[in-house]
C-alpha cells in the first residue's frame, strides 16, 4: 500500500520534471532557463530519494546530499554571470 503511494508520487514527479525541462528548452530568456534548471535540480533530488526507497539502499541518500549542496553553487554561478560579476 505505502509502496503504491510512493510510486504515484514518483510518477507525479516525473511529469513535473518533464514540465520543468519544457520551460528550460523553450526559454525565452536565459534567466528563465536558469530558474527551470533550479527547479529541475530540486525535483531530481526528490526523485533520488524515491530511487533510494524503492531499491532499499540508504547509501543513495549521499548522492541527494551532493545535489542539495553543490548544484546551488552552479545556479549562483549562472546568476553571477548574468549580472556580469563573475
Amino acid at each position, binding site marked *: 500500500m505505502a509502496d503504491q503511494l510512493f510510486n504515484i508520487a514518483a510518477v507525479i514527479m516525473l511529469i513535473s520534471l518533464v514540465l520543468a525541462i519544457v520551460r528550460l528548452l523553450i526559454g525565452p530568456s536565459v534567466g528563465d532557463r536558469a530558474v527551470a534548471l533550479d527547479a529541475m535540480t530540486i525535483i531530481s533530488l526528490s526523485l533520488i530519494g524515491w530511487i533510494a526507497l524503492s531499491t532499499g539502499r540508504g547509501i543513495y541518500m549521499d548522492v541527494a546530499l551532493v545535489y542539495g*549542496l553543490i548544484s546551488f*553553487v552552479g545556479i549562483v*554561478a549562472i546568476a553571477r554571470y548574468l549580472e556580469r560579476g563573475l
Partner: protein
Amino acid sequence: MIKRFLAIIALLGAAAVLLPFVLKLPTEEALPGLASEYIENAPGELGAANLVTGIIVTYRGLDTLGEVAVLFAATAAVGLLLKRTGNEGGVSHWRASEILESGGGFLFPLIILYGVYIFLHGHLTPGGGFQGGVVIATGFLLLLLSGSVNSFNHTVMSLVESFSGFAYVAVALAGLIWAAGFLDPRFLPQGDFGRLFSAGAIPVIYSLIGLKVGAELIGILDAMRCKVRREGVTA
C-alpha cells in the same frame, strides 16, 4: 555545404562503429570472470565495503596514480596558457549582494565538512577522494562567487598539493615494504568490517587523493577566472 555532407558521412561511420554495441550485447545474467572474482575476493582481502573504492585504490591503483598525474599536467597547462592576461574582462563587475556574501560564508564550512565526510567514508559509502575533492573545490568556488575572497594563497595551495602527492607515493612505497607490493594497503590492520577505521590504508590513500584533487581543481578555477580589479565599485 560540402562540409555538412562530410559531417554526415563521418556521422554514418561513427554510427556503424557503435551499432555492434547495441546489437550484440551480452545477454547472460552472470558477470564476466574478472568481475565475479573481484566481488568474491575483494571484501575478504581488503576489508572495504565499497568494492568500487577497493578496485580504484588497490587493484587499479596504478591507473589512479596516472590519473592524478594527468590531472596535475592539465592544471599546469591551464595555468601556463592563461598566465598574465589579466587586463581583459575587467570592464564592469558587480559585487555580490550582502545576503549572498553572508550566506556563502555560512555555507562554506558545511560544504567543506561534507567533502571531508565523503572522502573519509570512501570505503563504506558511495564517494571517495575524487568526489570529496570536487566538493571541497566547490566550497572554495562558492567563496569566490560570493565575493568574500578575492584570491587564494598560492603557496599554501601548492604546499597542500605537493605534500599530498608525496605522501600518496610514500604510502604506496610503504605497501611495497611491509605488504605484498606497491600500493598494497594491507600494512595497516584491517579493523572491523563496515566501521570507519577499517580496510587498512584505503581511507588514508583516498584522503590524500581527495586533498590533491581538491587543490588541483581550485588551481584550474583560479587560473580560469578573470583577474578583475575591484576598487571603486559600490554596487
